[in-house]
Every structure is written in structure tokens, then in C-alpha cells.
């Protein structure tokens, strides 16, 4: 390389040699880059395959199951004479609606109010609460089931009941609502608050009539996401609601739920019951997707507004 700098070589030759070296490296670097880029894109395709496969399979096998009887009849057990006797899942639909309704009544007020508290206070009690909410949000859902079993079924003596299951679901929902509310309330511009305070409104008046309406769509989004998660959760209600093949809905009754019906029927020996599972899964999937799209729509509208 030293003779590169000899005067014997012209500038042009020098440039040509450098370009050659640079191009040599560049070609192999580009090839390697392209290979890895295509690997990355392949990974993306692989990542999306499950959703396609899952939705395809569930729609394909679920749609034929969805008849009027599926929604209105009580479940029946197939027998050798009548292997296709499955009935419907009306008990699980009623049970799921009841569970989520009670869970929402318990969790939404607590979650929203605590979320506002953490957003508007910058002290030690607020950060303790934030830590607790994050810890609870990360706890496995089966532990909520153990908790509700120990506290509501045993300690409070309710036994297997809708109230125990909805308590477990409420414990699951509250952290989600707290985190969503806190973010929504924090995103309200400080100038709006100051304008209210400057007019002489008291802090609680500002919070109720200015901050809350502005943050409402964010809070509603959080609640929708929490509800859609609660509807599909099987682990917290697995050993708290008891299961029922009747149209039970009262808080102290044992009830059934859609995810539990899936859990039990999926392991059944009867092909007709295993077929029903896809129908229930389709109902859950449609509900969750609708909730998810509603939440995205609300978030999008809020972003356009501000």
C-alpha cells in the first residue's frame, strides 16, 4: 500500500484502486444486508401466520355451529343413542354477562377514582399506589382465582358463586383501569386546569367539570379493554363460579361462563361437543375484536380532536 503514495502513480490510478477496494467490501456488505433484511421480513410473515390460521380455523368451524339454538338452549350431554345432542350455551352467555356486569360495578368506580388520585397527586401515597397497580397488573390471573377462592368463597362464606368469580375478575380489571385513567388524566393540558382555577373554581370542581370530560374517552377506552380482557379470562373463574347448567345470574348463585365452557368441552370425548367449542370461541373472538376496534376508534378520535 505504501507505493500508493509514490508520485509515480497518478491520481486517477489511486482513485480507481480505492474505489475498487470500497466496492469489493460494499458488494459483500450489501449482500449480507439484503439476506438479513429478507430474513427479518420472513420473521414478520411467520409472526402474522398464527392470527390468519387461528381466525380462519375458528371462522370456518365456528360459523356452522352458530344457530338460534346455540344462543337460546341449555347445554345437554350427548349419549350413545344421540351423539349430536349438545344443546346450546345460553347458561354460559347469561353467566358471562352477569359476571362481567358485577365485576364492572365493582372495578370501574374504584379504578377510575384511584387513577384520578394517582394522576393528580405527586406524593408518596400516589407512588405507592402506582407501584401496587403495576405489580397487580403483572400478577398471573390464576392467582386472582386463588385469592377470590380464599377470601370470598371460604372467608366470607359465599361458596362457589357469581360474586366470587366477579370479584376475581374485578381484581384483574382494576389495575388496567387505573393505568388507563392515569394516562388519560395526565394528558389533559395543564392550561385547561389553570383556566378553571383562575376563574375561582375549586379543585374538585375543576377535576369533575373540566378534567374528567376531557379525559373521558381515554377512561372509557381503558374500561372497554379491561372488560374485553375479563370476558375471555378463564383462569380466575375456573374454581370460583362453580359452573351451572341453568340460567343462573344472581350474585350468590353458582354460574357458568363462556371460557369455562370452552375449557371443559375442548377436552370432551364427544366430537359434537368439541365442535361446539369453535362456536363459543368465535363468539368470544368477535366480541374481543369489536371491543378492540371501538377502543382504537375512540383513541383515534381523541387524537384528532387535540
Amino acid at each position: 500500500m505504501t507505493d500508493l503514495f509514490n508520485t509515480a502513480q497518478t491520481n486517477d490510478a489511486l482513485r480507481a484502486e480505492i474505489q475498487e477496494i470500497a466496492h469489493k467490501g460494499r458488494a459483500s456488505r450489501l449482500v449480507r444486508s439484503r439476506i438479513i433484511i429478507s430474513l427479518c421480513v420472513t420473521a414478520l410473515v411467520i409472526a402474522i401466520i398464527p392470527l390468519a390460521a387461528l381466525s380462519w380455523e375458528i371462522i370456518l368451524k365456528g360459523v356452522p355451529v352458530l344457530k338460534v339454538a346455540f344462543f337460546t338452549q341449555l347445554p345437554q350431554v350427548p349419549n350413545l343413542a344421540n351423539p349430536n345432542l349438545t344443546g346450546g350455551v345460553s347458561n354460559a352467555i347469561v353467566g358471562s354477562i352477569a359476571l362481567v356486569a358485577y365485576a364492572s360495578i365493582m372495578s370501574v368506580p374504584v379504578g377510575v377514582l384511584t387513577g384520578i388520585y394517582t394522576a393528580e397527586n405527586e406524593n408518596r401515597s400516589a407512588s405507592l399506589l402506582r407501584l401496587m397497580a403495576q405489580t397487580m397488573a403483572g400478577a398471573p390471573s390464576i392467582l386472582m382465582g386463588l385469592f377470590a377462592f380464599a377470601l370470598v368463597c371460604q372467608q366470607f362464606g359465599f361458596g362457589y358463586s357469581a360474586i366470587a368469580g366477579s370479584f376475581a375478575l374485578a381484581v384483574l380489571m382494576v389495575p388496567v383501569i387505573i393505568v388507563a385513567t392515569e394516562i388519560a388524566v395526565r394528558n389533559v393540558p395543564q392550561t385547561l386546569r389553570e383556566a378553571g382555577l383562575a376563574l375561582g373554581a375549586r379543585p374538585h370542581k375543576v377535576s369533575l367539570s373540566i378534567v374528567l370530560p376531557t379525559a373521558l374517552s381515554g377512561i372509557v377506552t381503558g374500561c372497554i379493554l379491561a372488560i374485553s380482557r375479563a370476558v375471555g379470562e378463564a383462569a380466575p373463574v375456573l374454581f370460583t363460579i362453580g359452573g351451572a347448567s341453568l340460567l343462573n345470574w344472581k350474585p350468590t348463585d353458582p354460574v357458568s361462563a363462556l371460557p369455562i365452557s370452552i375449557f371443559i368441552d375442548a377436552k370432551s370425548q364427544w366430537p359434537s361437543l368439541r365442535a361446539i367449542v369453535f362456536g363459543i370461541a368465535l363468539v368470544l373472538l368477535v366480541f374481543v375484536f369489536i371491543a378492540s376496534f371501538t377502543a382504537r376508534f375512540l383513541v383515534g378520535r381523541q387524537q384528532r380532536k387535540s
Partner: protein
Amino acid sequence: MTSNSVQISKLRRFVVGGSKPSTTERSWYSYLLGAAWGVFLLVSALFFWSIISKSLPVWEKQPGTILTGTSWGGPYGGFPMILGTLQTSILALVLAVGVGLGAAISIVFFIPARLRLITATIVELLAAVPSIIYGVWGLLVLSPWMLAHFYPFLDSLGLTFLGSSAMATGPSILLASIVLAVMILPIFVSITREVISAVPQDLIEASLSLGATRWQVISKTVLPTARIGIMGAAFLALARATGETVAVALTIGTVSNVQWHFFYPGTTIASWIASAFGESSSVDIQALMALGVILMVISLGVSLISRWFIARQRKMLAKV
């Protein structure tokens, strides 16, 4: 002066409805917020207290056996469940990180902007699918397919340490891990995507201007900058995998022995609690609660580590 103060008191009456303002008065509203705060902290404290207190007899009688014992019948050995939890969640994490890192990188850098929103939406929808649906899909769709094609294929590669495909029945540690990997993939991808997009544009442009190829920009600039946040995403996904219950309970077969061959059924802590609870006596339930405490420690520990990583990444990017 007087007209001014009349004006002000009129305005004030309009805003606060006539009552006299006082800065020291605590309104009903602040009590309400305080009450909600108290309720939530009480419930959280009860959560830990009730699970731990129910399991105390087990920790007093046989603290060693619940961790290392290999048989559930009699002395309540929890080792198969703890081992199974680690096996399934770590294998799932390896699969999900391999695919998810590539997917997140291509969402941010390689695909056209039009497709970006659609793929991001699909990933979020995947995250919203209830775990029981992944379980059903794994048991009724994936399991027969794997039994027919995937186990024999791995067998033909000579991977005998996994077990023999002829003796596989469908539900297995491998199947549960694949289902778990599919479940935790969206979480890992969405957080990794955020972390990668937060890498400052200046750094990327600086290395492009030095003549780096697109892959060199990513491997030499983006990934080192985002490394800690990606670790955080991985640990968050791991936390989710360790606590997953019903999807694993459906696909792993729930057999309570130590299982090293991934073609055969095993069990995890969460799925064992779910399937054993129904037929349990009150003494059994104490042991299941003790397993619950172990699960709580593992999964809260992992999610604590993940939160620490993500907070450190934020702090680091704030400095750049």
C-alpha cells in the same frame, strides 16, 4: 375598587354556585378519591396476605419438599411443576424472541409505511385474543398437525433428546411452548417496536452517512442503543408466559412427573393448580396455595426485572 370586587364576587358565584370559597376545606370529592385509594391498597394487601397465609402450614411442615420433591402424591413435591414452568416459558421466549425481533425490525424499517399501520393493528389484535382461544387452537388444530408432521420431522433430524415421535400423544411440553410463544409474541413485538422507534434519528442518519448498509445501521447502531429496552420486552413476555394457565393446561397434558423429553406431556405450576383444584381436599389446597406463592415470586420477580430494564432504557434515551 368596589365595582371590581362586586364583579369578581359575581363571577365567583357563577363558577362555584354562591358558596364561600375556602382553601383549607376538604371537599367530599377528595374524601372519595382517598377512599378509593384505601380500597385498592386494602384489596392488594389482602391479595398477598390471603394466598400466603393459606399456604403457611405447608411452608412450616415441608419447606424443602414443595421446592425439590418430585412426586405430588403424599409429600407434595413441586419440582415437576417448577421445572415445567421454566422449560415451557424459556423455550417459548427463545422462539418468540427469534421471530419477534425480526418482525419488530421489519415493521419499523423495512416495510412500506402503508403496511405499517395494518401490521401494527394485527399485532395488537393478536395480543387481545383470549388465552383460552390459543389453547383451543393448540389442542384441536395444532396438536393433530404436529402429531402427523412436525414430530416425525424433528425425529428425522435425529433430535432424540426430545423423545420419540412414535410415543408422542399430542399434548406435550413442545406444543405448550409453541402455543405460549404465539401468545407472547405480540407483547414482545409491540414493546420492541416502541423501543426501536425511539432510537434517535440522528444516530441512524450519522451511521448511514458513513456508508453503512441498512443491516449495519441496525446491528451497529439501533440494536446496541435499544438493547436494554429489548431485554425489558423479553422479560415482560417471560412474565406473561410463566403465569399463563388455561392455554397451557389444555396443551401440555398435565402429568405430574419430571419430564425432560419435550415430545411428552408435562405440567406447569399454573396449569397444575387449574387442573388439580377441582378434586382437591383442603390439605391439597394448602399445597396448591404454596405453589401459587412460588408462581407469584417467579412471575413478579421477572416482571420487576423487566420494569427495571424499561425504566433504564427510558433514562438512557432521555440523555442521548
